[in-house]
């Protein structure tokens, strides 16, 4: 889905560029335009048709007419509210802990360990190549009740373990977002200027670095949110009442409700994406004069 959005965005910015009088080849322009629109439409159908089908199906719970019965049924289900609430809290905790880990790390790597940057980047990419199921089995082996740190022994411990799992899953996105944000400011000079004015590390990171990469941190935060809301494997194997497993249970037992739930999940994700681009745009407008 996000691939389609980015294609669309690229397509639109390309159009804007052309309208501004960018390079415009004379011959074959119409031909090329035809094919690029065709590709866009085919791609759009590929992504939107199933979604439209799902949406249409979710409205057909009442025989012979369209209704919001399936949605009512989902929204009235106490498990929906519980699991969504649980996942939202987990997402917020993931964001906070993620920021606390990623911002100082990315900052320190840029400031003092620039040679380690490729290594750190590689580590942050590992969650993309190691399946979540492998990670979670590793967790269970490492932190089971007979281990040195029996996290899975209590509910709270398991929640914390799951939250760290989420932080890890979101790492490729949060780290990259923050690191890109840091690349737009002169980290070393700003740090040294603040130091010569008597600032401590906490002041430097809290009052200078964090506010200056706020947009990037927010991008990372919304991506974390979207990941946590839809995550299934870890929550299910750690047996926590999260939104992902609930969707799966509902999907296995009902007909129309899962479709409604899928639409709701999409809406939440899209709202996150929308907020993301909104925040990015606001922070960019704030520096427009630069």
């Amino acid at each position, binding site marked *: 889905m996000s691939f389609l959005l980015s294609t669309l965005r690229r397509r639109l910015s390309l159009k804007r560029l052309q309208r501004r009088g960018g390079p415009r080849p004379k011959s074959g322009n119409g031909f090329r335009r035809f094919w690029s629109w065709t590709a866009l439409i085919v791609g759009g159908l590929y992504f939107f048709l199933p979604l439209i089908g799902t949406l249409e199906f979710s409205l057909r719970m009442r025989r012979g007419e369209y209704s919001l019965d399936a949605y009512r049924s989902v929204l009235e289900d106490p498990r929906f509210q519980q699991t969504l609430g649980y996942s939202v809290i987990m997402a917020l905790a993931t964001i906070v802990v993620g920021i606390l880990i990623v911002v100082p790390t990315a900052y320190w790597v840029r400031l003092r360990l620039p040679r380690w940057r490729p290594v750190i980047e590689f580590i942050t990419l590992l969650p993309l190549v190691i399946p979540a199921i492998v990670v979670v089995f590793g967790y269970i082996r490492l932190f089971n009740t007979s281990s040195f740190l029996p996290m899975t022994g209590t509910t709270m411990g398991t929640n914390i373990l799951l939250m760290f799992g989420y932080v890890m899953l979101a790492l490729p996105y949060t780290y990259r977002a923050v690191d890109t944000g840091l690349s737009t*400011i*002169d980290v070393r*000079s*700003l740090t*040294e*200027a*603040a*130091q*010569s*004015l*008597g*600032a*401590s590390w906490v*002041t430097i990171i809290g009052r*200078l670095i964090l*506010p*200056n990469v706020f947009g990037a941190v927010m991008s990372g935060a919304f991506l974390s949110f979207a990941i946590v809301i839809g995550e299934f494997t870890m929550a299910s194997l750690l047996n926590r009442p999260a939104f992902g497993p609930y969707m799966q249970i509902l999907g296995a037992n009902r007909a129309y409700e899962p479709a409604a739930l899928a639409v709701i999940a999409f809406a939440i994700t899209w709202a996150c994406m929308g907020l993301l681009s909104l925040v990015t745009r606001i922070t960019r407008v704030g*520096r427009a*004069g*630069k």
Partner: protein
Amino acid sequence: MSFLELQNLEKSFGDTRVVKDFNLNVAKGEFISLLGPSGCGKTTVLRMVAGFEAPTSGRISVDGKDITRLRANQRNVGMVFQSYALFPNLTVAQNVGFGLKVAGVPKSERNPRIADMLALIGLPDLGDRYPWQLSGGQQQRVALARALAPKPQMLLLDEPLSALDAKVRVSLRNQIREIQQQLGITTIFVTHDQEEAMAISDRIVVMHQGVADQIAAPQDIYNRPSTEFVAGFVGTLNRLTADVLDPETGHIRIGGSEITLGQPLPAGRVTLSARPEAFRLAATGIAAQVTKVEFLGALISVAAQIDDTPVSFVLFNGGDDPVPEPGSRIHLQIAPSRLLIKQAA
């Protein structure tokens, strides 16, 4: 008695010795420039004083107190950077007040101090702007105000003018000097621009390959350079080889011409080094051929050849002598007092 003392300062990065046995005493209120080509270690010395680099060995003390191992945020020095380094998320006033806020100065004392500082740099009405709304020169003045606001013991300037255009550079350097004298603050200024260093310093440290070649007042650096490097780096230097014909009267032969300097010289071959302003046109003297004439406004720079040795000298615009044409033959006299003479190998 000296305020800042650097003793036997050394700094190595890996196997490279960047600063070697560096010694400097700075009096209170003095304006010192560290001058040298890039890579000479001048910035490293400044960064060690600021506390951003730890010396490999040696001692730094301020007002009798050893600060060698003190952390940068406890040294109470004001620093201005080439890249301005203003905090982009804070307004001008917040930038200037940052050091005070960190030090816990209450708002009621902070605000008048910020206003004073903005008045000092001549930007009293720009407190609410953000850094990106200011020109480069304005940003650097704000950076200066920010460095001075917490009343630091010392002001450290790391090539503060290098990113600015020529006109702003000159006016800002004068402003820096004025403010420095007004506040009487001990200042170290790092630059690779000799004109800048000469214009505003009490003393200049010329650095070369991690060593302080000469520490002296600008006039002495220029007129009496102590090493070949200083002589060549600061100002233009013409080098001529001469055969001494009579050591007692200083009668010498340069190219095909013979002149008498009127001072004793070592016998044999000597190297004469002279600044462009040591030459003047004359009816007799060293024969030369003009190769290029450059009009610089108040001065006219002339390049000529004495046999195969290139020399360059300057004439005042509107002086008594007619400006020579390229290709013409001229005669030059050298002021003996402006010559550096060395026995040639």
